């Protein structure tokens, strides 16, 4: 039986797709059979971040409507073993995504995979609720910023009431906080909420902290999930996050103001 993890946030553009791609890839790199599903019908871009846009033939809705088999729609990742992508439809109506259809797809995938990662659309409506409905765990992606934190709190409310686990009075969805686009310099100058602030306000377990990083745009330009770039801060931070999801105790990194390195001190003309 697979573990179903939804990557969600309420607010748009905070880094859900970046995170879903990096975490799914990270889980697969660690030897777990993983599938990552794009629930963002009409605005799919997981395929772009994963670099498989030219190999999309069928999508989740084709499968739900019986127009294609699951194995025809699943795309095998070129770089990473054990990793598959199930794209969303670019053109079809959101309403074609039915709870019964999604349940069937997830049930079938559950037999085969260790992890099913669901990339949620923004918002708190139909699509977002469906992406979280069957989840066992939720990664709540949050930027250190007022509207993102507020929306994350609303998502926590939905996770506690509008999921299958909640409706069946089963043990609740396990909630993880993932803070992204964190800028320690701005935190130090008092212009960005601190990690502790966000954690205190949302009061859920922190699974990772991803710094604001140039590596993310570079990765999306290339269509290679940033976790492959292990020289980068964001790549390492996502790898740490995956380790924590797998139950390992990994110390937090990249949350402190970085003093300039020797090279940039010598050539950057900076003062010491």
């Amino acid at each position, binding site marked *: 039986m697979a573990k179903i993890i939804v990557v969600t946030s309420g607010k748009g553009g905070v880094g859900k797709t970046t995170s879903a791609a990096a975490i799914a890839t990270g889980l697969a790199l660690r030897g777990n059979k993983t599938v990552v599903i794009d629930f963002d019908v009409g605005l799919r871009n997981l395929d772009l971040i994963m670099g498989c846009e030219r190999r999309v033939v069928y999508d989740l809705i084709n499968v739900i409507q019986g127009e294609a088999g699951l194995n025809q729609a699943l795309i095998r990742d070129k770089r990473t073993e054990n990793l598959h992508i199930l794209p969303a439809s670019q053109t079809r109506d959101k309403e074609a995504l039915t709870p019964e259809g999604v349940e069937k797809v997830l049930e079938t995938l559950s037999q085969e995979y260790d992890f099913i990662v669901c990339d949620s659309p923004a918002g708190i409506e139909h699509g977002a609720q469906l992406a979280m409905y069957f989840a066992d765990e939720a990664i709540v992606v949050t930027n250190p910023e007022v509207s993102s934190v507020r929306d994350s*709190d609303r998502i926590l*409310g939905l996770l506690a009431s509008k999921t299958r686990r909640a409706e069946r009075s089963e043990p609740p969805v396990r909630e993880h906080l993932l803070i992204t686009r964190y800028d320690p310099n701005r935190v130090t100058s*008092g*212009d*960005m*909420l*601190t990690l502790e*602030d966000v954690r205190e*306000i949302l009061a859920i377990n922190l699974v990772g902290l991803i710094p604001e990083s140039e590596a993310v745009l570079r990765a999306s330009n290339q269509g290679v999930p940033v976790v492959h770039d292990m020289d980068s801060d964001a790549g390492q931070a996502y790898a740490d996050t995956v380790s924590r999801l797998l139950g390992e105790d990994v110390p937090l990194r990249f949350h402190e103001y970085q003093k300039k390195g020797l090279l940039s001190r010598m050539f950057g003309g900076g003062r010491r």
Partner: protein
Amino acid sequence: MKLLEFLKRERKKSASVAKERLQIIVAHQRGQRDQPDYMPMLEKELLEVIRRYVQVDQDAINISLDSDNDCSVLELNVTLPRDE
């Protein structure tokens, strides 16, 4: 001396303002979380009724539902304006 104090007293950092605002917003959202779906409507209609008699602000009314094992208590707080 006063000048030195003035210089030392920092302008309130924007992040701490953000935190204070969020604490209030989140407390409010969580208060509403476990409420029955009819509460916002009930609150709105109660406000309309009260306004037929007294001019009160939108936020002068505070309504909450507390449940324990065998009964629920609907608590309604209305702040009335001071008599002129």
